[in-house]
């Protein structure tokens, strides 16, 4: 019985934690794989640097996506975000399961909007980190 109680409390604590991250991080022209809060970003640094090349006054949403296993999935996501006039650039990294979206600095990025756009393509966005250029 005690074991069951302990398990219930432990499970409740896990569930109570917010699984989504919407943290802003300062970025100085190249990618820090480890953020200031110690979290690992897991973005290909070469790919990221290529992505941000020529971008100014932008913020990059790095979105972790589940179920992105082929080009068709990626293409749907790319098409959907390209319709958004606030999106300056998008890159899909199938190997890391990441989508990089560049927005203007003045755009307030909402994770729920991004999550919805990815869901209508049949995948799940599970967290997001915002990097300021």
């Amino acid at each position: 019985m005690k074991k069951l109680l302990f398990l219930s409390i432990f499970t409740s604590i896990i569930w109570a934690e917010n699984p989504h991250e919407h943290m802003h991080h300062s970025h100085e022209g190249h990618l820090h794989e480890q953020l200031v809060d110690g979290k690992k970003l897991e973005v290909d640094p070469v790919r990221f640097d290529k992505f941000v090349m020529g971008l100014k006054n932008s913020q990059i949403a790095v979105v972790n996506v589940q179920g992105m296993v082929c080009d068709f999935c990626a293409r749907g996501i790319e098409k959907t975000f390209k319709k958004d006039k606030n999106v300056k650039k998008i890159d899909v990294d199938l190997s890391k399961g990441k989508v990089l979206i560049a927005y203007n600095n003045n755009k307030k990025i909402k994770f729920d909007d991004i999550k919805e756009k990815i869901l209508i393509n049949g995948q799940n966005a599970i967290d997001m980190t915002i990097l300021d250029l």
Partner: protein
Amino acid sequence: MGIKLFIILTFMSLGLDARPISYSGGSTIMAFSDNIKNSTYYHYSPSYKYSIGVENIKNKYFDESYSYARFTYLINRKNSQNSQRNLYFQSGISSKGLSEYFYGVHGDWETRRLFVGFGLKETEKKIKNYLEQYYQIGIAPYLGDYGDLHTWIMLKSKKNSLENNWTTYPALKFFKGNTLIEVGYHKKINWDVHLMYRF
């Protein structure tokens, strides 16, 4: 122009069941050919959960032509970091009347490296009903990036109750951009060619 379109659609054949639903607002055109039938199929997906479409069939076994109004529904999808699993329901009503139709399920599980799929389809016809089954496994010999040419080596096994025997054969699947081509060969069924274009 008509001949070119026919050739394109014919080479689009084999993979009618591959990705039967597109992303929301997406359209797909496919073609299929084997020893039983030739078909072309267009579908539109208002949502990632279902698609509606029209399939034109030249049935070689019964020597007749007809069309199906088709509906496919995503019963279940499980996305994880490195894989996706799907289970679909499919159905169609024939232009020959409400007494001729088909229904079935098919499913798949795939990572960027591995693919496993199956399908069951029962077709009701005035002449004779029949059941089609298939299973397939595949492996990608290399992992391409988004936009690269992707290649899959597949092993397919299928049975049609009209012929009542299993046929197992290798197939190659090539995939780039919006286009997918799958080619298989077996001496009984000859070439098995699928082509799919998504837009």
